């Protein structure tokens, strides 16, 4: 009853609870929160427990730089919850941040996007986590569907639309027609695997250890998925494993391309498998209009060119691919209000 009362003072939210970033779309306002899914926890044995030190960007800056009594962790792993309590606290923090400092604790209606391949147990954990964070109404929607809607694809038509959402923890490919998923596949490869691949490459070839944050910076600045005409370089610092002291060295984009080959081939393989499983009529629709890329991974340079070469199909990158899922969820929330949840096969 109190949740319902508090709901009058809350906004409807669409949450993209991602492995790397959490985005919140508020109805009528757009994307209002885009923060890393990182929580820093301080151990306080004297006071008999743990305390949340920081959440989001502030906590991400602490990654790899924390003293013994503080741990900066990512509560989401491979698109699903790895630490239930911390995820709940992080969601609660973000929901309250979106609503500002109000007297009444918010109790919004929430649409949470979940990976297509997630199990019932994983979905239940996300739902209960959102409810524990104060939501009075929670619905889960599959990420590829939200990504396609957010990208502006005509998913309601009786035509096949293929979307590839490359997130932080998972990559999902789906063929959608008449507001429903006809076929979908997911691989647990995403931006995090790209970072790991770069860390491993640098350790193997240079004997230098770099952190996650440095690896992500290398990926964003010179990472590419297809050989380009121009070779870019970046200077980074890491700990030399044999000497044990920090050393500076230079990496170029061709090296990063080589480092990313394994995770990239995993994603290409998932797309090819999906095309093999797609019914022929829908496959021809996809061949005519093309595959749409969304998610943070779509920002990797020339990933569309790689997929075009590998599949022989046209590939386009959606506008603002990082926010497609959250925007799509918000749009679906509005349509559910107008036409009922049955429009997208929800109950």
């Amino acid at each position, binding site marked *: 009853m109190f949740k319902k009362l508090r709901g009058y003072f809350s906004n409807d939210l669409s949450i993209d609870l991602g492995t790397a970033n959490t985005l919140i779309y508020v109805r009528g306002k757009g994307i209002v929160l885009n923060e890393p899914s990182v929580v820093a926890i301080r151990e306080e044995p004297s006071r008999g427990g743990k305390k949340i030190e920081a959440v989001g960007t502030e906590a991400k800056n602490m990654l790899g730089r924390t003293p013994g009594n503080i741990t900066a962790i990512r509560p989401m792993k491979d698109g699903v919850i790895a630490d239930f309590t911390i995820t709940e606290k992080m969601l609660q923090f973000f929901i309250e941040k979106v609503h500002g400092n109000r007297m009444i604790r918010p109790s919004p209606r929430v649409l949470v996007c979940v990976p297509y391949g997630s199990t019932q147990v994983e979905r239940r954990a996300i739902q209960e986590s959102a409810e524990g964070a104060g939501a009075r109404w929670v619905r889960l929607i599959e990420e590829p569907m939200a990504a396609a809607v957010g990208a502006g694809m005509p998913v309601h038509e009786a035509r096949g639309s293929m979307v590839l959402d490359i997130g932080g923890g998972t990559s999902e490919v789906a063929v959608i027609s008449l507001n429903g998923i006809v076929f979908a596949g997911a691989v647990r490869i995403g931006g995090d695997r790209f970072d790991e691949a770069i860390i491993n490459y640098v350790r193997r070839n240079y004997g230098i250890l770099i952190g996650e944050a440095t690896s992500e910076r290398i990926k964003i600045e010179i990472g590419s998925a297809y050989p380009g005409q121009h070779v870019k370089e970046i200077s980074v610092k890491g700990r030399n494993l044999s000497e044990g002291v920090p050393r500076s060295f230079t990496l170029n984009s061709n090296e990063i391309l080589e480092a990313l080959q394994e995770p990239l081939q995993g994603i290409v393989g998932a797309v090819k498998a999906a095309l093999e499983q797609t019914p022929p009529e829908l496959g021809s629709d996809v061949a005519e209009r093309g595959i749409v890329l969304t998610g943070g991974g779509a920002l990797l340079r020339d990933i569309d060119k790689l997929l075009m070469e590998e599949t022989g199909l046209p590939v386009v*990158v959606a506008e603002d691919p990082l926010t497609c899922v959250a925007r799509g969820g918000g749009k679906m929330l509005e349509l559910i209000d107008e036409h009922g949840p049955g429009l997208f096969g929800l109950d």
Partner: protein
Amino acid sequence: MSPSDADGTELPSSPGARLRRKREAQGISHQQAAESLNLDTMVLAHLEANDFATLGAPVFVKGHLRRYTTMLGLDENEIVSLYEHSTQQLGEPSLVPKSRLEMAPVRSKPRWPWVVGGAAIFFLASALVAYLSEHGLPWIDATPDESTAPVLQEAPPTTAQALPAAASTPPIAGPAGTAPDATAATASRALQSGQVSLQLKFAADSWVEVFDGSGKAVLYDLGKAGTERTLTATAPLSVTIADAAAVAVTVNGRVLPALPRAQGQTLARFSIGPDGSLR
């Protein structure tokens, strides 16, 4: 004024025309351009003709325009900006099937049941008001109604004749030879609680007054010899009979043996309780 090309010729203002001109300037055929973009030649032709509606949605139009522009070495943002300012720009898809749009208003706002239901309630209310204004409230009226009919049928047989006080009741046609006690019990059950059935048979002319529990005069008349009065009223009844010897009284189907009267007088004054007993 439109921008000019490197050779000084004015550039077309539409994105499709500008792309076509650039492609032709580079000597690339339709077929070659389509193959390098993995597109059908028809899709490329639609792009160059600014016929964007066939491409389905803005995401495809902008995506293909960007790819095509990059391939030709043009500024992709400029071409996309031209598209966004052109009259052929597509709107975002609605995501609601057209047939559903037609169905939605019918399903969400069915007004005819309210109209029909409201009209029916209005007519019923009007009819009830008209009936009550004509007949009054039947449950307040003390005159005997049809519910007394079974009681009257249980009464001892009499000669059929018109009775002024029971004019609205059906003619008495009770079965002959019914045991008085049995009829009394049946009559008591048939009567509403608190009501008493009273039957007066006049052997000679006699004045009679009967008041019911609320003090209302139920009977206030001269009973003629040979007539009979039957009434049902709410107890206790206050009865006054001028010539007690000439009137036979039956209460709830039970004949009273003798009426209480003062010594040397013909007048009897008594009360009848809810159970039919004298007081």
